[in-house]
Structures are given as structure tokens and as C-alpha cells.
């Protein structure tokens, strides 16, 4: 167990090797939740994602992630034909393609993306894949956020984040967290 800010953080249920797409990095940054990536034993970004973050003017995200065992992977070293074929079919962007190629070359990685086509491809490749919402809900389970804090983050998504989610579904998730915290 390690102490981090106001919360007792469990480090025995880590995320393992985490490969992250651009979307979740931006969304977590907008919500002030980049620390949720600290649970990764190794956080890997392909060069296309790193370049996109810089291009969009969010270099501070990369500086923050250096504390989370960030490693930038050269995309040339991770070409995979099956990934490429599926990526073509689903018309994925370069960052998503490189993330998937990277995952295909790693032992049991988790892929974090909010792009549904990329997620479909990842499932087809048999990868563990989750999105920003999952990571926020998980934060309650592992003690990085209280249920109340997670609910506030989720409620703020429409105003503070570029992550789009149907309001009724968001309310449903909030109710689930509240019910779960009362159990």
C-alpha cells in the first residue's frame, strides 16, 4: 500500500501494461484524472499518439505521464499484418493503428480507447480493452476516488470533457455507482 494525496491507494490490483490511445488521455486530462493511469505497471504510447498530443497542444499531459512509467514506443518496431488488415477494414486513424500493433506485440496488455471502431478491432484481436468511463468507475473499486467523487466527475463530463455520452446512460452509471457504494 502507498499513500497518495488523500487516498490510500491499493497497488496490488494494477492495470499491468497499458497502451493508451489519444482520446482517453485528453478526456482524463479534462477531468483532472490523469493520476488514474498511475496504476499501470508500464504505460505505453505509440509515436503517433505522442505526436497527436503534442500537435493538439497538450504536451503537459506527457510531462505528467512521465510519473506513470510512460514509455513511447517506436511504431516501426511493432508492425503486425493482421492488425493492419483489421485497421483498414475499420478505417482506423494512425494512432489507433499503432496502439493495436503495439498491443499485438506485448504480453497481455490492456488497451485504453474511447473509439468504438478501435475497440471493435481490439476485441477481434482478443485484447483486453476498456475506456475512460471504465477507468473512472474502477477508481472507486481500487480506492483512488470515493464514490461521491466519481459521481461528480461523471456528472461534469458534458460540461468539462470532449467525451460524448448519452445523458440517460450517464445517469444510469451514476445510479449504479451510488447503489454499489451503499452495498
Amino acid at each position, binding site marked *: 500500500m502507498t499513500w497518495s494525496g488523500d487516498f490510500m491507494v491499493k497497488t496490488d490490483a494494477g492495470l499491468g501494461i497499458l497502451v493508451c490511445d489519444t482520446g482517453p488521455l485528453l478526456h482524463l486530462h479534462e477531468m483532472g484524472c490523469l493520476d488514474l493511469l498511475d496504476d499501470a505497471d508500464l504505460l505505453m504510447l505509440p509515436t503517433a499518439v505522442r505526436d497527436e498530443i503534442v500537435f493538439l497542444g497538450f504536451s503537459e499531459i506527457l510531462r505528467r505521464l512521465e510519473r506513470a512509467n510512460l514509455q513511447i514506443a517506436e511504431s516501426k518496431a511493432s508492425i503486425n499484418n493482421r492488425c493492419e488488415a483489421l485497421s483498414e477494414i475499420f*478505417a482506423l486513424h494512425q494512432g489507433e493503428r499503432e496502439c493495436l500493433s503495439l498491443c499485438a506485440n506485448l504480453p497481455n496488455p490492456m488497451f485504453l480507447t474511447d473509439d*468504438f471502431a478501435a475497440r471493435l478491432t481490439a476485441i477481434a484481436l482478443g485484447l483486453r480493452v476498456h475506456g475512460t468511463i471504465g477507468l473512472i468507475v474502477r477508481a472507486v473499486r481500487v480506492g483512488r476516488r470515493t464514490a461521491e467523487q466519481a459521481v461528480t466527475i461523471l456528472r461534469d463530463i458534458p460540461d468539462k470533457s470532449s467525451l460524448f455520452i448519452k445523458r440517460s446512460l450517464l445517469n444510469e452509471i451514476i445510479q449504479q455507482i451510488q447503489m454499489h457504494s451503499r452495498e
Partner: protein
Amino acid sequence: MSETAQISIPPRLMAELEDYVREGWARDVNTLVVEAVRRFLESHHKALAQSFIRDDVEWGLHGQD
């Protein structure tokens, strides 16, 4: 019967679309754009999106990792 919509396409993307048409891969840019939109809607199906997010919540609340 089709609806008409006016859209702006970045020049580089437009050039690529025109290349496809010029090389004979598609009848015209309109056809390509409609096909791209159809593919987007197929892969971003609302029910699928909800299912992914519900899976995430389930993992978030009860997962082991």
C-alpha cells in the same frame, strides 16, 4: 430519394477522395462520402456504444484488474 447536405472537407482529404475517383475505385466523391458515413454508422452503432460502456462499468465495479 436522398437528402442534400453541405459539408466542408479538408483539402488533403478531398485530394485523396478525388484520387480514388480518378483511378476508377469509385464513381464520384459523393458515393465515397456516403460509403464513409455508412461505415461510420455501422462501426459506431448506438447499441454497440452502450454495450461497450456498460461492459466498462461492470469491469470498473467488479473487475479483478
